[in-house]
């Protein structure tokens, strides 16, 4: 990839963001346009802002990478990410806006009148926020590494510094316009190259015939392996090696690899002729990493129980969207519950439209960038495709556009998350110390995920996001659904449910991230259950919340009826949502 173009594009994205952020305010100097200035954000604009904040590095890079590596089964990721808004729309959006809550802890506070419930919710918000920040920073490292050649950790640290400075300095002054712009940028950055890619694909003499067989290199390909990998070979395979394979050093030596498992030392460069099948990557714990039947669902994922895994994914993404702290605060911008519902419908359309694109990149990535399967950096598929498929100046320019989009993806989500986490940290978790204290909280909000992402850069981006969704689904989904739709919820019940559901999901996630364990948890059902906790932790959260609430029935908050009325009654009767047009006429 041409680095100059890439750097210019990424810088342009950052500068445009900052400019819109500082000048996008509505300013009026005469009283005649006062009315325009004091008009609330229309649903379509707010929906664009929500989508802009929501579409993260996981959506922009991760989905294509997963589809390229593991096949059509991974289409559940985009489906789930979008469908989460359907649940949000039907059950949560309007009542949550009417509750007047700005954050999830606010909701717990207003519904349950309990400081303790508020605190527990705060701690969980911080946990979910950190889990979600982690893959954003990794995506940043990946993108900047590809664009500028910088080491992986540097990109994450750089983005962390930029975000911290922006948030601590008072944030963006007109966050809605910034995020709406980010959505447009992300959509453009995937849509425009996609058109060219599809044209190039169509013009290719060998169209995608062989999606079922293991993919093959289409031209002379050099693959440099960054870290030591094990590869599995089915038929004898010719290659030219500089580096070490199976412990023997080669210097541009020809080599025929026999069927079986071989070890390629980190830093080794392999060269393959056109038509050579891509060797399969063998993951450390002996499971197959690449699916041999890519196009058939539930046939060969990397897990032992693909059906269960799919349901785990569905539970987490469908129910987890409503618990994402940075998405919920955007709903506050809506003037009332009806606007919140309308906004959600538009978000559903915007997000759903966007998610049509990443699977296309994943498909093309499998055909045209199969070497990524070997090196394991499939998250980069979106970034390298324009160069591979279009090439030349056009490829460079399109590549730069994609890089700018990726940059927008992790910048917008990371800044939104940092703002939410820092806000909750300073308001509810840390003792109050004044204004300087918010900056301290910002630093803490970023420092933790940066440290983890520098220490561990191996987690697939979309997977890490899935874990954040699982924790959100098993803690906040029960709180919101029961809080809005059931009078019987009590503060002790909510706290117990949050701790049991969220805590168990968090523990499972922690065990999973901590890496392949030895012992009974490393394989089989136990591993699958821990890696996809939502299927059991969401019902657990619901059950705990309901049972404990029933057991503490005498602690139902005194104001429940009033709160319920406020949550479910429209703010004003229908037909009166516009300011009265017959000016000057009043009725007693």
């Amino acid at each position, binding site marked *: 990839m041409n680095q100059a173009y890439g750097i210019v594009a990424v810088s342009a994205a950052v500068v445009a963001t900052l400019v819109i952020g500082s000048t996008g*305010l*509505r*300013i*009026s*100097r*005469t*009283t005649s346009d*006062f*009315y325009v*200035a*004091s*008009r*609330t954000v229309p649903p379509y604009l707010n929906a664009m802002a929500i989508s802009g904040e929501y579409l993260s590095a996981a959506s922009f890079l991760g989905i294509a990478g997963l589809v390229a590596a593991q096949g059509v089964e991974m289409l559940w990721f985009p489906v789930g990410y979008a469908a989460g808004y359907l649940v949000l729309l039907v059950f949560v959006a309007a009542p949550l806006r009417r509750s*007047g*809550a*700005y*954050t999830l802890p606010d909701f717990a*506070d*207003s519904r349950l*009148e309990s*400081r*303790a419930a508020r*605190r527990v919710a*705060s*701690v969980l918000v*911080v946990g979910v926020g950190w889990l979600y920040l982690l893959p954003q920073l990794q995506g940043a490292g990946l993108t900047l590494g590809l664009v500028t050649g910088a080491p992986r950790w540097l990109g994450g640290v750089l983005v962390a510094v930029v975000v911290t400075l922006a948030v601590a300095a008072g*944030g963006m*002054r*007109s*966050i*809605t316009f910034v995020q709406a712009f980010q959505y447009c940028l992300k959509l453009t950055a995937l849509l425009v190259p996609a058109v060219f890619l599809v044209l190039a694909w169509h013009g290719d003499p060998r169209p995608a015939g062989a999606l079922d067989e293991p993919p093959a290199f289409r031209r002379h390909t050099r693959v440099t392996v960054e870290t030591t990998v094990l590869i599995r070979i089915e038929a004898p395979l010719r290659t030219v090696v500089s580096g070490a394979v199976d412990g023997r050093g080669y210097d541009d030596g020809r080599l025929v690899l026999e069927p079986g498992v071989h070890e390629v030392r980190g830093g080794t460069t392999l060269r393959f002729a056109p038509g050579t099948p891509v060797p399969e990557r063998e993951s450390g714990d002996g499971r197959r990493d690449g699916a041999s039947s890519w196009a058939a669902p539930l046939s060969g994922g990397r897990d032992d129980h693909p059906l269960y895994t799919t349901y785990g994914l569905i539970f987490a993404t469908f129910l987890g969207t409503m618990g994402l702290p940075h998405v919920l605060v955007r709903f*506050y911008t*809506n*003037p*009332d519950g009806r606007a919140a519902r309308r906004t959600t419908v538009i978000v559903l359309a915007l997000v759903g439209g966007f998610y049509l694109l990443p699977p296309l990149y994943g498909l093309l990535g499998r055909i045209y960038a199969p070497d990524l399967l070997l090196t394991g950096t499939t998250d980069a598929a979106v970034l390298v495709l324009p160069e591979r498929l279009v090439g030349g100046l056009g490829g460079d320019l399109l590549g730069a556009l994609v890089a700018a989009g990726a940059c927008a993806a992790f910048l917008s989500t990371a800044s939104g998350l940092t*703002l939410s986490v*820092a806000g909750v940290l300073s308001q509810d978790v840390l*003792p109050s110390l004044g204004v300087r204290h918010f900056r301290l909280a910002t630093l803490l909000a970023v420092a933790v995920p940066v*440290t*983890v992402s*520098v*220490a*561990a850069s*191996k*987690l697939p981006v979309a997977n890490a996001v899935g874990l954040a969704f699982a924790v959100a689904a098993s803690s906040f989904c029960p709180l919101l659904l029961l809080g809005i739709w059931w009078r019987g919820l009590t503060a002790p019940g909510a706290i117990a449910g949050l701790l049991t559901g969220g*805590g168990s999901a*968090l*523990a499972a996630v*922690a*065990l999973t*991230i*901590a*890496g392949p364990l030895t012992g009974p948890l490393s394989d089989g059902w136990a591993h699958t259950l821990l890696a996809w906790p939502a299927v059991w932790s969401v019902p657990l959260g619901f059950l705990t919340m309901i049972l404990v609430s029933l057991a503490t029935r005498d602690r139902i908050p*005194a*104001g429940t009826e*009033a709160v319920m009325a406020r949550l479910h009654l429209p703010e004003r009767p229908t037909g009166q949502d516009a300011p009265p047009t017959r*000016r*000057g*006429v*009043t009725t007693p």
Partner: protein
Amino acid sequence: MNGLALLAAGAPVLFAAGLGAGRLLARRTHPDGTDHGTPVERATFHTLHTASMAAPPLRAGLTEDAARKAVRRLRPLFATAALGLTAEDRLLAWDGPGRHHTDTALDRVRQVLATGRPQTFTVGCPDPDCPVRRGAVAPLTVDGRVLGALVVLGSGGSQSVVRATEEVARWVSVQLELAELDRTRTGLIEAEIRALRAQISPHFIYNSLAAIASFVRTDPERARELLLEFADFTRYSFRRHGEFTTLAEELRSVEQFLELVRARFGQRLQVTLQIAPEVLPVAVPFLCLQPLVENAVKHGLEESVERSRIAITAQDEGATARIVIEDNGVGMEPDRLRRILRGEGSPSAGIGLRNVDERLRQVYGDEHGLVIETGVGAGMKITMRIPKYRGGAQRSSRHRAARG
């Protein structure tokens, strides 16, 4: 992978630490055994501490929730079996065994309510294991009215228990009186809003009508527009329902106000408005902006002949909205301003400023009062920071509704 392992270990630890820190903060004043002092001192400290723990719930008035918490915290003061609190002859809360004696106790409570004097009684219980043998009832008196009673049941009926019952009942009465006082104060603030609404009018109304009158012949269309603005403005200002409104509505009212002022002063008044649309739905106390803008206009136009500039800014600050009103008028001596805000100045001066400041403090707490920067001849800059979520406000208004 090391870092990941660290995270795995760290997440639950942080989780626990957060909870622990919260608990610790909540109970920083918890007594422990490391006290040094004579037994008498320790006993005094203990009693005072128990009493102070029970005070906050009682300040909410005689509700079931408050009574339950208070009774639980007060019971250690007595070495007896059970403690109960009633509002009139309705049992609000009961802590300890002997629930089957509540009927007997309530009979006595009725007598106490009628006479207003404490009394003791014996309880005949067929159950030999029941710890309740004797009881004492003392009235809770606020402003000479008996609101309820404190019931103490126990095995012994010594004189000291009776005296303790009386003393604790008196202490609870004082707390209830304070609660009553709180309620009066909120009532006072509500009265002040009403006063402020009534107060907007006189000068402004005369001046506006006079300005409109001057347009009636020269520019009838403008006069009509202005009259409609005037009607809308007064309708908003005199509306009767709700202590809160949105910033958008408040700004609309300010717009109408400024339109009327411009009819009078024309190009001498220049207004800049800079609003982040995110903060428009924020709930703000009714009429919290308009008095401040009126103030700025007065300082800028009516007390000087220069061109007057007023800037209104509303920014998004995460969980709060920051609203700034700035003018380049005559300003004010800081000392005089301080006196006005303390309510010591002449009654007519700056009443709007003080009223807004007090209401903000009342609703959101002292850290959200007005921040005013000014000096003589240096203009004035008023900043307020309004939390987007007003949990406390909603709750207090709900309580008031329940009580009222």
